[in-house]
């Protein structure tokens, strides 16, 4: 599983308890993250080709039109760069944080469209994974579906690297959490007796 550099003493999300340890920070697969930059490269290539073509055809032969064309094409690339970085940021800020108590799901659906769900590990019932298609199978990424008990909605996280190892990590963390809680409960019950 590809995990971010996790520092146990660092606070990663607002509602993180002081004794809560971050096990893993999961982001989308690098291939998914790189998509906006691949599109940007292709766009720049198209813009440069178009400029060269206009120049070749003599459409921007005088100094004025040539300068204006350079300005317009430059602005196009400037906007495309910003757009690509923003697309990357939206994908990059889509994070799944697994701690020893919670599964924190941060969904960045767009600029100013953000949702944070904090799931108690005890409420997780099942974690399903799915790798669909040639590219996902070859590069080893897919989606994970976290099913929860009660009214909490199920959560689907797509484009994640090594979904099976993340599934294992979530289920292992859940098992440890449930066992720990059971132990505390039994200690409280025996103390009351």
């Amino acid at each position, binding site marked *: 599983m590809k995990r*971010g550099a996790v*520092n146990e003493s*660092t606070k990663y999300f607002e509602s993180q308890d002081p004794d809560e340890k971050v096990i893993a920070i999961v982001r989308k697969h690098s291939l998914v993250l790189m998509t906006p930059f691949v599109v940007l490269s292709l766009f720049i290539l198209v813009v440069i080709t178009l400029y060269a073509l206009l120049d070749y055809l003599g459409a921007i032969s005088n100094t*004025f039109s040539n300068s204006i064309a350079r300005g317009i094409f430059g602005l196009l690339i*400037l906007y495309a760069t910003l757009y690509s970085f923003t697309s990357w*940021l939206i994908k990059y800020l889509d*994070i799944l944080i697994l701690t020893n108590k919670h599964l924190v799901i941060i969904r960045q659906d767009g600029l100013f469209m953000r949702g944070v769900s904090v799931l108690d590990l005890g409420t997780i019932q099942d974690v399903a994974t799915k790798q669909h298609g040639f590219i996902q199978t070859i590069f080893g990424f897919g989606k994970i579906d976290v099913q929860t008990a009660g009214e909490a909605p199920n959560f689907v996280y797509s484009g994640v690297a090594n979904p099976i190892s993340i599934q294992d990590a979530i289920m292992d963390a859940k098992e440890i959490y449930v066992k720990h809680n059971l132990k505390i409960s039994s200690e409280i019950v025996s103390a009351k007796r």
Partner: protein
Amino acid sequence: MNQALVIKIIFGIFSLFWLGGFLIYGYHVFSYGVPGDATKKSFLLLSIISVFLILLITFGLSGIDWSTLR
């Protein structure tokens, strides 16, 4: 209104819109980035590329003899 002013206003408006987008990007980086992630590096990279492109556009537009435009 002369031609030179119209061109300058058009480029100015586009530049302001772009600057707005750039500031929104920065806001997201500093508000929602998690410790140790690559968001701040990306902001630095975007800034460097942008400065380079702005210089390139300025160089491109500097070829115009603005005084001849009416």
